[in-house]
């Protein structure tokens, strides 16, 4: 429960302090939050505030951490924004499977003093279907409007016509937490990052802008084996070679200048005992399956890219075919980029293209010499015949 209600600011004060703090969205798009707030406020109708806590990115843990362990800071931010915009409703969208997060939110809301105010916004916590694309802002708005959780063409953008057709501010849960800190005067530029891969366990760490990737890995318990490559920004993010990446500061402008981004705040370290090709093929197949199924380049293109990557890990394929598949991956990644209604294909394109350049040797080695031992093991595990368990009734490998 908050010790005292957070300060209330009017729109100009709030936008000014967000701009002074150079706050950008923490969901991955890195859009300046102050600008977004102004865009919503410039509309005629009464706005609605949406907290995007869907966290569809499989590697991310920071939003569920903040929503359940720093619930009041997130709500401070949301209430403050709602007050400044004159919004009459706050909707928090959470992956429907995360019952603990939803419970934490309900509990924190029960103790909020603002809700007793006259004209206080109505706050709702809503479970959203899981899936990578259902957290995309138009998909989330569509779901909250009673439609399928699939993206629609923009414009109109949510800031013009969002929830219930009203101007809607959709921001990531951590963005509201940052607003909460800025308003309380406790903002120091630090952010939350999920560290995954070759660390003892997936960990959420709070990092200051100067913190290096290496320091974040140490904070997450240290690497469990030598690192062969680092993925920044999650499954729609960018691979970087381990050695230079470890020294990079976790500061978005610096990373962007290097062609990198933390996206929704994700660091994934690929251990040298893992096969990069097999990892990239597995993730790409998963991402292809996550398509909303609306745009041809996404539906057919991502499936083709995933299939060609799987060719590199499949035993028994002639070398010529593997080389052709590798060349096709390059071509198709360029072909699907920027060709969807949302940026899902762009993310896959970036993920795969950067993997091909960072792990060029591994990929050409797979094309030339066929799958490595690790690929073969992964392939066998993935293609193992299944039988139904007598005890549990579930499918298990033979």
């Amino acid at each position: 429960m908050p010790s005292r209600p957070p300060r209330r600011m009017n729109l100009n004060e709030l936008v000014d302090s967000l701009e002074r703090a150079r706050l950008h969205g923490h969901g991955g798009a890195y859009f300046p939050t102050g600008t977004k707030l102004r865009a919503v406020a410039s509309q005629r109708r009464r706005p609605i505030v949406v907290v995007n806590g869907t966290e569809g990115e499989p590697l991310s843990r920071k939003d569920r951490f903040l929503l359940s362990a720093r619930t009041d800071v997130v709500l401070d931010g949301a209430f403050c924004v709602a007050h400044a915009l004159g919004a009459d409703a706050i909707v928090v969208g959470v992956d429907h499977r995360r019952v603990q997060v939803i419970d934490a939110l309900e509990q924190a809301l029960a103790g909020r003093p603002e809700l007793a105010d006259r004209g206080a916004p109505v706050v709702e916590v809503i479970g959203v279907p899981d899936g990578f694309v259902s957290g995309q802002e138009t998909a989330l708005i569509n779901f909250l409007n009673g439609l399928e959780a699939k993206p629609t063409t923009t414009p109109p953008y949510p800031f013009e016509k969002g929830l219930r057709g009203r101007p809607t501010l959709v921001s990531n849960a951590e963005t509201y937490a940052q607003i909460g800190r800025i308003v309380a005067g406790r903002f120091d530029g630090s952010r939350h990052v999920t560290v995954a891969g070759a660390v003892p366990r997936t960990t959420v760490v709070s990092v200051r802008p100067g913190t290096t990737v290496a320091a974040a890995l140490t904070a997450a318990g240290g690497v469990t084996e030598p690192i062969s490559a680092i993925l920044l920004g999650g499954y729609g993010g960018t691979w970087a070679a381990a050695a230079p990446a470890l020294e990079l500061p976790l500061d978005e402008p610096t990373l962007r200048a290097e062609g990198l981004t933390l996206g929704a705040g994700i660091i994934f370290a690929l251990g040298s005992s893992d096969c990069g090709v097999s990892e990239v093929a597995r993730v790409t197949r998963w991402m292809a399956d996550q398509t909303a199924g609306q745009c041809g380049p996404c539906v057919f293109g991502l499936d083709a890219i995933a299939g060609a990557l799987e060719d590199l890990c499949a035993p028994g394929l002639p070398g010529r075919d593997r080389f052709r598949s590798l060349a096709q991956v390059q071509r198709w990644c360029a072909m699907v980029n920027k060709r969807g209604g949302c940026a899902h294909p762009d993310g896959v394109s970036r993920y795969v293209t950067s993997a091909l350049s960072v792990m060029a040797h591994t990929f050409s080695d797979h094309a030339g010499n066929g799958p490595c031992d690790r690929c073969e093991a992964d392939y066998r595990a993935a293609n193992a015949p299944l039988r139904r368990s007598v005890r549990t009734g579930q499918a298990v490998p033979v």
Partner: protein
Amino acid sequence: MLVLQYYVIRATGTMTLILFTATVTLGLLNRSRVATDRWPRFVIDRIHRNASLLAAAFLAVHILSAVTDSFIAIPLTAAFIPLVHTYSTLGISAAAVACDLLLAVLISSLVKGRLGYGSWRAIHWLAYAAWPVALLHGIGNGIDRATPWMILIDLICVGSVLSALALRLLTVPRLEAV
């Protein structure tokens, strides 16, 4: 009765049926994504469109010549409202129904851009209802309905639409936005 007008009614009626059939057939072929190098998609689409406009023109002359004919004396209302005329009620009513449906299809296609895809398609489907009704009007009222050549035309029309329809139903649909 003017002999010329008598011929005009018959000729325009038959021509409307042929052009309407061509329109429906080409529309179905286009939906099945039929195309060759000599006959690309846009050519079939253009012929579909032009045939439909030509059919509308023939239909207008057909109706006009029928309602102005002093011998058969069909009032103009009968061309648009079913079951108001005592003369061959069923056939003329079928004509009126087909005429109304076609008018809806024609107007909706002219303002397709403004209508939006969903509503346009819903209305465009009425053409599938209009075609058999129009055919029945010909079989029921056509002066030449019993002549071998008219029977042949009817059969060709039915065969053409049915085979295009079969092709359409057999074509695996591509990704369609819902």
